[in-house]
């Protein structure tokens, strides 16, 4: 059942995270082609090797429908698998396993996974105000009949911050809450970011006091425990074993994955503190025939510090309720005994919309392929990657292994 491990990540590209105000503006089609080009070069492959495409569906600038067709035509490729994913921050992880599955089913030999996340230029007569208007409700749908428009917005429930904060509060009530342990997640990751040339917070070190002294946004979350949205974008090439054999870098085989979507608003979860990654990771480890202790690094989706805590627990790295102790007892940096988000995580690397999830995927590939430069782990063969969309609504897990 599941994957046999015959598909691998063979190349990747990622724009340096930048503030929206100063980042280049490019059409999304243009970004797709540019990122594909860079990722193919990284792999040492040619465009004509591509026969599959996985792209983000929503929020594509040039079209709201027929997005795969428009993108494939623009790239000049024909594909046997034309896929969109609409899983928010889980999209990157979800793209990778879908590409691997298409390859193992024999549909494709090389699949482009891509998410453009720089802003497109405005038309000469376009009013930028529409964008501010569209963002006003923090991504919550305001459509007539949308449950969130009717039952959340009137009370002030919107965006992501407060949902994650409520999950943290519930966790605190059940298991206790150690603020400094939570802050340490951000601090250790910031340490890692100092070793990644593209991290947005490179050059800005951080202490636990800094985190706890930063502005409280929604109890118990401080601003330095919340990701910063940036412009960016990423592409990853997933290929068959045969194609991987002629790629430039050491491939990262996809040997396990899982996906779980449990709700939109965590208010309707069976148990708010048991997150969907539990099921996703269980399946991923089972598929790979490995366990959390076999992992040489964990690249865990980190929109908030609480996401990391719950993912560590629910993915099986530490028993439920013991995550905070674990965090304090371990050095989570790339130099430490539990290397976590060795690129800095999205908290310190930057979150380029749903392409932010690729930062974790690409860091896993960088570590496995020995491309992690100053932060390279020794003997990094097995890496766990997670993705999280919405308010822990949808989560995915990958096991990547050096081949």
């Amino acid at each position: 059942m599941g994957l046999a491990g015959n598909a691998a990540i063979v190349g990747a590209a990622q724009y340096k995270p930048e503030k929206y105000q100063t980042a280049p503006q490019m059409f999304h089609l243009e970004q797709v082609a540019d990122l594909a080009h860079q990722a193919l070069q990284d792999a040492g492959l040619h465009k004509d090797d591509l026969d599959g495409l996985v792209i983000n569906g929503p929020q594509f600038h040039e079209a709201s429908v027929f997005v795969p067709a428009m993108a494939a035509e623009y790239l000049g490729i024909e594909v046997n698998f034309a896929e969109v994913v609409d899983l928010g921050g889980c999209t990157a992880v979800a793209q990778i396993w879908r590409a691997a599955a298409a390859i193992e089913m024999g549909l494709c030999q090389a699949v482009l996974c891509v998410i453009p996340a720089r802003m497109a230029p405005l038309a000469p007569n376009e009013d930028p105000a529409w964008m501010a208007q569209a963002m006003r409700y923090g991504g919550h749908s305001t459509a007539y009949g949308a449950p969130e428009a009717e039952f959340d917005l009137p009370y002030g429930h919107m965006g992501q911050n407060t949902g994650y904060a409520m999950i943290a509060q519930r966790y605190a009530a059940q298991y206790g809450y150690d603020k400094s342990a939570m802050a340490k997640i951000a601090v250790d990751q910031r340490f890692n970011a100092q070793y990644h040339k593209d991290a947005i917070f490179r050059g800005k070190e951080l202490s636990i006091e800094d985190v706890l002294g930063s502005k409280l946004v929604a109890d118990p979350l401080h601003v330095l425990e919340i990701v910063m949205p940036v412009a960016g974008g990423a592409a990853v090439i997933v290929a068959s074993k045969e194609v991987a054999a002629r790629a430039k870098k050491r491939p990262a085989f996809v040997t396990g994955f899982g996906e779980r979507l449990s709700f939109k608003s965590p208010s309707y979860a069976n148990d708010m503190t048991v997150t969907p990654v539990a099921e996703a990771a269980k399946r991923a480890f089972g598929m790979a025939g490995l366990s959390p202790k076999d992992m040489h690094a964990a690249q865990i989706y980190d929109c908030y510090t609480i996401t990391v805590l719950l993912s560590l627990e629910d993915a099986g790295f530490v028993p439920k309720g013991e995550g905070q102790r674990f965090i304090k007892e371990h050095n989570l940096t790339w130099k430490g005994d539990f290397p976590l988000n060795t690129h800095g995580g999205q908290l310190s690397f930057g979150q380029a919309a749903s392409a932010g999830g690729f930062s974790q995927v690409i860091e896993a590939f960088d570590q496995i392929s020995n491309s992690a430069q100053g932060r390279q782990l020794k003997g990094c063969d097995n890496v766990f990657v997670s993705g999280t969309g919405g308010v822990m609504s949808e989560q995915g897990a990958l096991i990547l292994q050096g081949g």
Partner: protein
Amino acid sequence: MATLKPMPQATKISAPFWQALKENQVKIQQCNSCDGWVFFPRNHCSHCLSHDLDWKEVSGEGTLYSYTLTRIPTMPEFADEMPQALAVVELAQGVRVNTTLIDVAEEDIKVGMPVKAVFDKVSKDGETLLRFTSVSNDGGVREFKDPLEGLERNDKGQVQVPVSNLAALYALADNEFTPWSNSIVVDQALINAFAELSGDDYWIHTDPERAKTDSPFKTTIAHGSLVQVLQSKLTIALPFEITGFQTMVNYGSNRLRFPAPVPAGSVIKGRSKVQDVSVSHKGVQVTLEMHIHVEGNDRPSVINDLVILYR
């Protein structure tokens, strides 16, 4: 009434829920096939998909499943409630509701605490949101508090609304017209005077003889813009005065329409209402919708959306 905040729009499916709240009841759906309780409202059971659901009144009691205190408003419009205690309440029936907890001190809020419903009247029309509070608190209804209430009045009896009081400003946009103004007569002499002043001496305004035969109105009519400018002679008792601004600019009109003619000799009167209040980097913009009617005609002769900018 315009409010600062996003308001629920009931659908055919959810209407009984909102109607019950207006009547100070919590009603949720229960499935006749599997006995499961359903929230938010749907046309099918969220446990078994059966369409056989009934609305049942429940006590509105439950426990606090989780909460957070917002230290930065989730939208600027919620600034007046800060910090909001955003909450998830688990009703006794097991369903959970996104809501806000009110009238509980920060230090007294505990996950798991028993809570009860508060029917919060958020508009004059009785629109009701379902909030919760500690069971140790009194009362199940929070009456609508008119944001204009308690504000001072000037000697004309107008409520004094500081330009900084957004909630009160929004409350002005209540879609209620003022009483009618005084009436004035628009006679041929006035029309002639305006024709001379403006230069618009088209026969339809100025030649009663020709109008009798050639005009569809069989008499001369006033210039639309004459009736428009006569608004200065119509004393309209706005119930408020905006205060505390640096400058007030008459920005012009967003819409000027002349839906009905004003035959010479007509008596006209006017009224207005606040159509919209909006806040931007330019300041606070109030749009007054001014209507001028010929007495006895339901259709206005002038509709003028006057925009005034305060900063």
